[in-house]
């Protein structure tokens, strides 16, 4: 059974100028260990699809099964907990917590899960080492470069050992060198720990590194 299965997912946004179908009757699946890029031009529905898979946005129709659980049917409260336990997020704008250090940011999810301080700090440090930022553990986000912040965001997403990581245009704000470093790290984690990565991107460098590409146009897979 696939890790994620989408069945006839439709997401329509209502606006003053009319309805916009962001995801149009889309069905697909993702297996464990995939390194997949959802690609397409701006407005094609990449982020909407990612939000739907991540349980951040409910589709108007269709089903999204993750490990056999149809998350569309989950109540808001259960959905928040499901996200916490099963999904890691990497956002385009890093979205680290500015008042916490890199170590604290990485360990934050584990604290939400109720992991004790010793274990969560050990895990956070292990991940910061994996993304090459062990020496910046006590720096706050404003003391890190964009690339470093995004690496901390990846470490944070990985901290709770989620079933998969959703990364929404993770390299959009990074320079070439930072992009390469970040992609190397994610590819290594995918290889070694079999972590599933699903990106939305239109960055060719990401597309080149992806093992599977899902091209999207007008809310449908081309």
């Amino acid at each position, binding site marked *: 059974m696939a890790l994620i299965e989408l069945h006839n997912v439709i997401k329509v946004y209502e606006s003053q100028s009319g309805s916009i179908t962001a995801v149009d009757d889309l069905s697909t699946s993702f297996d464990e260990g995939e390194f997949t890029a959802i690609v397409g031009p701006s407005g094609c529905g990449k982020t909407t699809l990612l939000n739907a898979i*991540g349980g951040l946005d409910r589709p108007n129709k269709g089903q999204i099964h993750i490990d056999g659980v149809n998350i569309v049917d989950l109540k808001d409260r259960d959905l*928040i907990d499901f996200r916490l336990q099963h999904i890691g997020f990497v956002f385009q704008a890093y*979205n680290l917590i500015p008042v916490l250090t890199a170590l*604290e940011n990485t360990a934050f999810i584990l604290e*939400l899960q109720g992991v004790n301080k010793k274990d969560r700090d050990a895990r956070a440090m292990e991940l910061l080492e994996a993304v090459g930022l062990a020496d910046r553990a006590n720096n706050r986000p404003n003391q890190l470069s964009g690339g470093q912040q995004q690496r901390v965001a990846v470490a944070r997403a990985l901290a709770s050992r989620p079933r998969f990581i959703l990364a929404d245009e993770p390299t959009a704000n990074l320079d070439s060198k930072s992009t390469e470093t970040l992609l190397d790290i994610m590819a290594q984690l995918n290889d070694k720990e079999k972590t599933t990565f699903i990106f939305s991107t239109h960055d060719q460098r990401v597309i080149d590194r992806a093992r599977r590409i899902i091209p999207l146009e007008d809310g449908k897979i081309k």
Partner: protein
Amino acid sequence: MHTIRMAWRNIWRSPWRSAVVIGSMSLGVWAGITMIGWATGLNDARTVSMLDDNVGHGRMLSADFAESQDPRAILPHLPAIIENLQSDSSVSAFAPRVLVQAMIQSGSGAAPMMVLGVYPEAEQSVFSAARKVVQGRFLKDLESDEVVIGEELAKRLEVGIDDRVVLTFQDVLGEVHSALYYVVGVYDGASNLLEEMMLYVPVLNIARQMQLVDSLGIAENGRFPVAHELCFRVRDPYAMDASLDRLNVQDSLRRWNVSKRSGIESLDPLALEESPLVVRSWRSISPELGYADEVMAQSLLLFMTIILLAMAFGILNTMLMAILERTRELGMLMAIGMNKRKLFALIVLETILLSFAGLPIGLALGHSTLAITSKTGITLKGVEKGMAEFGIDSTIYPVIVPEYYLPIAGLVFVLAFLSALYPARKALKLNPIESMRVL
């Protein structure tokens, strides 16, 4: 732990804004504490003044006299009571009195009056009114036909030293009796009202005029043969300095409840006898003084609540701004799995920490202000006469009020919690996706 750390650090994301809120909270608490200390000092000064002047710290009387004011109901076992009190270390002074309602007349007028038949030396050891003689002198012996009246009464009756006045009263046999007295002194009481209502005559003189001694067959031998009541002072164990003396007397009185079991051990055996003694604390003698304390305590807490309520609106506004500025971050927190309970806790904790940060500063400032002014006193110029009407000296010694610190902290906590509710509700209503789109 992260939540507390995050909440604390979040406060300092806008240091100036937080500093203004913390500063205003400090000032509010300082103003409240200072005001409470000042008002308590004012009230205590009035209470102590009244106690010193003529109320005393406590009184003993027979149950019959307490009930009916029957002039025949003299204090039973007076020699035994006095013997016991003299050996009781908790009592510092006592003064037996004979009481009678009378009408005083002079060539210029008449007035109803409470006549106090006193043992001069004992009376002066307990009450300051008997010591504050501004014209002439106080009584010297137990038998002469002398009277000491208050300044206001002297003005009203237009009498002075050596003038004659007539006291008319009912004796114990029910006969109306008049007697001539010479004014030998004029006293300055704590309140004008009391100066008009209370005068002193020698105890044996009035007891005889009332037929009290003869009809009851009381022997006159001994120092204190007869009394309707026995007023006393308790010893102040905390004598420190002049200003604190007054307050500590007050404090010791507050702790000292003599309504039924006096706490004066020497009275215990007497209280069990047939003619029961009634022992009254000053709160029972002058309940208005006790009520004033209670009303003031409640009023001051209400006053403090109003100050803090105003602060709470400032805090609410600050938190709303903070939520608005952090919409994106709050959306991200919800997206990655922070549930509503934890988000609510974060906002509430932030608000409470912001509010509480100013509390110790305000308390410390207030405490210091009161500590200094309770020693130096604050003199109110130009209102001496008005304050004298209420029996208050024009120099007020504010009181340090640690008993209010905990209630104030509780109030800050409650108001901080309440002012967090609206911002927290706003935060909980955020949609993660829409919030993260906010730039």
